[in-house]
């Protein structure tokens, strides 16, 4: 009798599972939900859940509902692999992740190996925020797709803007000492050197990631160097503390950043009083001027109570639907083929394309500055009363860099 109940207990879920798995498309969201990166990870999760609800309300994808499965990786590559395996065992065929290029590299590798060992059970990896260029160059994988612009694409766009600003004469680079910060620094040196050889790089600083409590010594160095502009890829508290120290010391320079809009960033910028002197480079932003995107932002803020920090997540989920409809299937192999060279009208306006060569999504890039808002700009950030203002839109063809990816195709 006990054996029989045991047998039923084991077999019953097996019988039940395939039916339910067919009704829903499960997307494993692997990002930090505890520890130092939790604030970022939570924001991403709420965004994806909002997007899934939105798609489900419109009938889902090919009649199937979408379910986001949150998996906490504590920003740790090893933990991410454990969570990814757990997700795959639970029937997940799509994984999305963004925070930390080291995590992204580990996941990309994991998914590639998994797919070569388990034909017929392939998994796709959608990267929405890890921007290390190597992920679409020497470490590229057929199963990895990236919706954010890689850091060299962003730097290409940024330097294209900076080269036309004659007031920039002395540039100081300060970055976090890990793969992303180092690629910002080398790209900036290379691209500025090629486009504006007259610009002097007066400082090139690397500091440990998330370990500095007081940036005043760094600010003293920037001041002593006589720089008029600073380029930084800093994010999180490293950005907020850097700007606070600058505000305290009264350093008046222009800041060219990747992540000034991250949590705590806008508040720190407001404190500096640097009105429209802090620039950010993104694939979209709240006051972009595009009506559809601004309506979307309004609805998003009303429901989630956050700024839409990831317009690329919107692009990702919408393209997921478009690719499924093109392939008329939700099978990952067919989906991957359908995504290649898929053209797509992005949220903030303009055409993007998922490049077949390296699975990097190419899209328009915006440079915006943070400061007092005009009447046509309704959205502020972190209740500071200040918000983002369009400075320059760089269209897809001007925001491209070549790739060295040699992809193994199935």
């Amino acid at each position, binding site marked *: 009798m006990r054996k029989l109940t045991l047998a039923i207990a084991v077999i019953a879920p097996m019988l039940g599972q395939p039916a339910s798995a067919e009704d829903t498309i499960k997307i494993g969201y692997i990002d930090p939900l505890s*520890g*130092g990166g*939790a*604030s970022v990870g*939570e*924001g991403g999760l709420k965004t994806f859940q909002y997007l899934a609800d939105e798609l489900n309300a419109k009938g889902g994808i090919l009649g199937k509902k979408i379910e986001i499965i949150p998996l906490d990786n504590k920003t740790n590559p090893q933990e991410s692999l454990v969570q990814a395996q757990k997700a795959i065992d639970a029937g997940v065929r799509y994984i999305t992740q963004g925070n930390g290029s080291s995590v992204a590299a580990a996941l990309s590798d994991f998914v590639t190996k998994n797919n070569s060992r388990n034909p017929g059970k392939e998994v796709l990896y959608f990267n929405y925020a890890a921007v290390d260029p190597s992920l679409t160059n020497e470490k590229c994988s057929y199963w990895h797709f990236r919706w954010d612009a890689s850091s060299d694409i962003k730097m290409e766009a940024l330097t294209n803007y900076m080269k036309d600003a004659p007031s920039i004469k002395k540039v100081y680079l300060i970055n976090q*000492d890990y793969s992303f910060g180092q690629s910002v620094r080398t790209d900036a040196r290379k691209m500025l050197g090629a486009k504006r050889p007259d610009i002097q790089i007066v400082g090139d*600083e*690397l*500091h*440990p990631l*998330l*370990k*500095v*409590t*007081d940036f*005043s*010594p*760094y*600010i*003293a*160095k920037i*001041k*002593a160097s006589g720089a008029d502009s600073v380029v930084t890829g800093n994010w999180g*508290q490293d950005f*907020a*503390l850097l700007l*606070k120290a600058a505000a*305290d*010391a*009264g*350093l008046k320079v222009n800041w060219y950043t990747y992540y000034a809009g991250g*949590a*705590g960033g806008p*508040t720190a910028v407001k*404190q500096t009083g640097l009105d429209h002197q802090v620039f950010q480079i993104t694939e979209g932003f709240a006051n972009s001027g595009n009506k559809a995107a601004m309506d979307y932002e309004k609805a998003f803020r009303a429901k989630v109570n956050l700024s839409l920090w990831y317009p690329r997540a919107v692009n990702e989920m919408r393209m997921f639907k478009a690719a499924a409809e093109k392939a008329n299937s939700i099978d990952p192999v067919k989906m991957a083929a359908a995504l290649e060279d898929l053209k797509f009208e992005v949220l903030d306006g303009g055409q993007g394309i998922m490049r077949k060569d390296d699975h990097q999504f190419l899209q328009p890039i915006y440079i915006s500055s943070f400061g007092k808002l005009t009447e046509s700009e309704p959205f502020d950030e*972190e*209740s*500071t009363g200040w918000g983002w203002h369009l400075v320059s839109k760089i269209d897809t063809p001007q925001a491209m860099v070549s790739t060295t990816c040699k992809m193994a195709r199935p």
Partner: protein
Amino acid sequence: MLELIVISTLNGVLFGMLLFLLSSGLTVIFSMMGVLNFAHASFYMLGAFFGFQLTKWSGFWPALVLAPLLVGAIGMAVERYGLRNTHKHGHVAELLLTFGLAFAIEEIVSMIWGKSPVDYRVPTLLDFPAFTVFSTNYPAYKIFMLAVSVVIFVALLIVLKRTRVGLIVQAALTHPHMVGHLGHNVGRVFMVVFGVGSALAGLAGVIAGPALVTQSDMAAALGPILFVVIVFGGLGSLPGAFIASLVIGLVQTFAVALNGSLASAFGPLDPSAGPSVLTDVWNVTIAQVAPIVPYLLLVIILIVRPMGLMGTRES
């Protein structure tokens, strides 16, 4: 060059005094009770969040008084209902209790205030540059932090070394029964000492909150450096902690200012060797490793002088 030296010295002293502000309470608790409080940085975080919340309701100055009192009360409760019971099981149990408490406080704080940084600002009264050196401003708020640190240092020294209260507190540590027989309530003495130590952490939180980022992982970020300060200065020595804070502040600040590396001192390695781990190590500048330097100091002092700069105990 002179400019960088003067400014680095100033920055170093300011940062050092902030460190002292943070570590004074930890030192008091350790020297008086022999308890190494792992949750100290969490009390500091509580101080920052209470300060933020009270500032919203009643302004900064009442918060500056109320928040440390609140944190002190929590500290006393922890001692009375937690530490006192675990005390008989020895130091490891006490340590584990405070260790667990640190995680619990972090979770509670992130449940109430969320995981993103809160907008905690410098009071408008102190939001102006106090003076300018070589065109670099020094905010009045930093000078205020410096003044508070010095006042706390002097006040603590006087209370502990020159008053009857200090005498009883010190005696209670080594001869609790004797002090008890003399009619003092030893349990209450310990409770008050722990409360005062926690309140000092809370005060540091209220003051440092606007200067640093107030968010739910700030305790974890600052905890390790506090232990460096008190071990380097000598476990339980208040002047030791004071000197250690200054030394660490200055060393770290000057390290940032130095761009030297092994490569710049001895010339680059043979380029034909190509990029390797060796060339990476060779080219690392002192500035790049500056925030790690205090931990290096910790290791060195533990090898050379295990009791710390001014400590008296071997452990």
